[in-house]
């Protein structure tokens, strides 16, 4: 059984089609990246999964349960972190977390272990927190019910690099526990590093569903050199390393750069269209 399965999902806002007939599957234990430009349809897709929005057409199943009529059950095992870190300004973070624990019948002790991990003082009022700390509140809140599926909408924007690493380490731990993570992000380097698979959405349509291993093996070697007489050459190398060195040794080089194309380069192609 797939953790998430979407079949022919369409969502219209009046005449505007935000998501157009998309289908996707996410297996249990996978970390899947969901990538696309602003307004591509990422958040709308996520909100349909959570039954915040009713699909115009199509079906969504979370752990085999129909999201449109079993959302109450689904919410008991699904953690969600929205892209906007909007909480009640005058409330202390601890009260936000307590409510999450109380309604999901989980122990409040988890609040303190997660706050320690993310270095957050839960006794502060939400309005007194920096943007990064507000993001931490959102992350912690989504993890408190110990979800088996986690849907994260741009989770790391605003977090410092150290905290981003801690966050992804935690996601890898969740993966080891066979938990599923569906992650929408603009941080392509993180997607490359931590996701098993990446889905690219453009203008409401999924244009690519790529396995990260396949991407990594298909990355190309780009060689750029400059000779002493000022000639600059850049080419895609298909030879093995020894052959390449032999070829280069015949040249009178001033500088040499050998790099691999990144997943980011692949993504950018789709971003740019």
């Amino acid at each position, binding site marked *: 059984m797939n953790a998430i399965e979407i079949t022919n999902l369409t969502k219209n806002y009046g005449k505007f089609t935000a998501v157009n007939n998309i289908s996707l599957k996410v297996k249990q234990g996978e970390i899947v990246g969901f990538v696309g430009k602003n307004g591509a349809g990422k958040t709308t897709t996520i*909100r349909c999964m*959570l039954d*915040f*929005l*009713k699909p115009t057409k199509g079906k969504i199943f979370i752990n085999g349960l129909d999201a449109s009529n079993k959302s*109450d059950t689904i*919410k*008991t095992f699904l*953690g*969600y*972190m*929205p892209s*906007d870190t*909007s*909480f*009640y300004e*005058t*409330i202390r973070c601890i*009260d*936000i977390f307590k*409510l*999450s624990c*109380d*309604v*999901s*019948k989980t122990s409040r002790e988890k609040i303190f272990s997660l706050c320690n991990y993310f270095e957050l003082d839960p006794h502060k009022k939400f309005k007194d927190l920096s943007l990064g700390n507000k993001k931490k509140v959102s992350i912690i*809140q*989504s993890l408190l*019910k110990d979800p088996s599926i986690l849907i994260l909408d741009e989770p790391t924007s605003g977090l410092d690099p150290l905290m981003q690493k801690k966050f992804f380490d935690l996601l890898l731990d969740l993966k080891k526990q066979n938990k599923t993570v569906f992650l929408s992000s603009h941080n392509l380097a993180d997607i490359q590093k931590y996701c098993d698979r990446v889905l690219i959405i453009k203008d409401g349509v999924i244009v690519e569903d790529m396995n990260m291993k396949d991407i990594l093996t298909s990355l190309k070697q780009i060689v750029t050199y400059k000779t002493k007489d000022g000639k600059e050459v850049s080419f895609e190398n298909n030879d093995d390393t020894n052959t390449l060195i032999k070829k280069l040794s015949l040249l009178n080089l001033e500088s040499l750069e050998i790099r691999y194309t990144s997943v980011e380069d692949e993504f950018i192609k789709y971003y740019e269209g």
Partner: protein
Amino acid sequence: MSNIRHLFLFQLKMKIKSISIWSLIMFGIMSMYMFFFSTMQEMAQVKFEMLPTEYLQLVGVSDMAQMSNYVNFFGMILNILVIIISIYAITTGINLILKEEKDKTIEYLYSLSVTRKQIYISKLLIGFLSIFMAVFAASIAGILFGYIVGDNTFDLVKMFSIIKITGFVPFFFLSLGLFMSALSTKHSSASLGCGIVMISYMLGYLGKILEDKADFLKYFSPFELLSPTNAESLSNETLIAFLIIIVISIILLILSSFTYKNRDYNL
């Protein structure tokens, strides 16, 4: 039930300040007027007699005798406060859901292991508590000062009747506000709510001053149908109107709940 309780207590923490302030203001205004009841009695004979009847009717006074009776005087002031509380009620009703959607704070509630119905009921309870406290505070002030400055015209039974009947008007507007917020996809409905209350009040006033020519207008105004004067005399017509308004309020709440459960969130 426990989830509703958790949600209710969580929201109460945020609203307790505004509920307290509103209640204190209502208590203060009512106390201030009631404290000067005897002075008002004397002044009314001199000053109010000079005013046109239509103007007096606008503030709920039909004849000067009302001013020398503690229960009537309380009804007149409560009538004015009920307009204010009704504006507060309809705005509260609209904002309970729409403002949270505008601020996107409701996304947090939606992500919790709670149903839409539980969110709706907890918000409804908060709304009811806010309005109840405001009406209760004004009523308590009226009763307290009745014991202190009320003369032989102070009648607790009649006051209870006014509080019960006229005090229900804001609850109707709260239901209407919730219904509007469940239907609406626009965020700025608070001014519309304020307008509806004022129009409703004015229709009742027009129905009263135009008498036979436009008597039907009063049926569009809970303020007139459940006015303190009607509440005190408690005719069959008032009783039926009271029951109908209760039924309409319940229908609005049920429809709101149904609509809210099945609509897209405005995020």
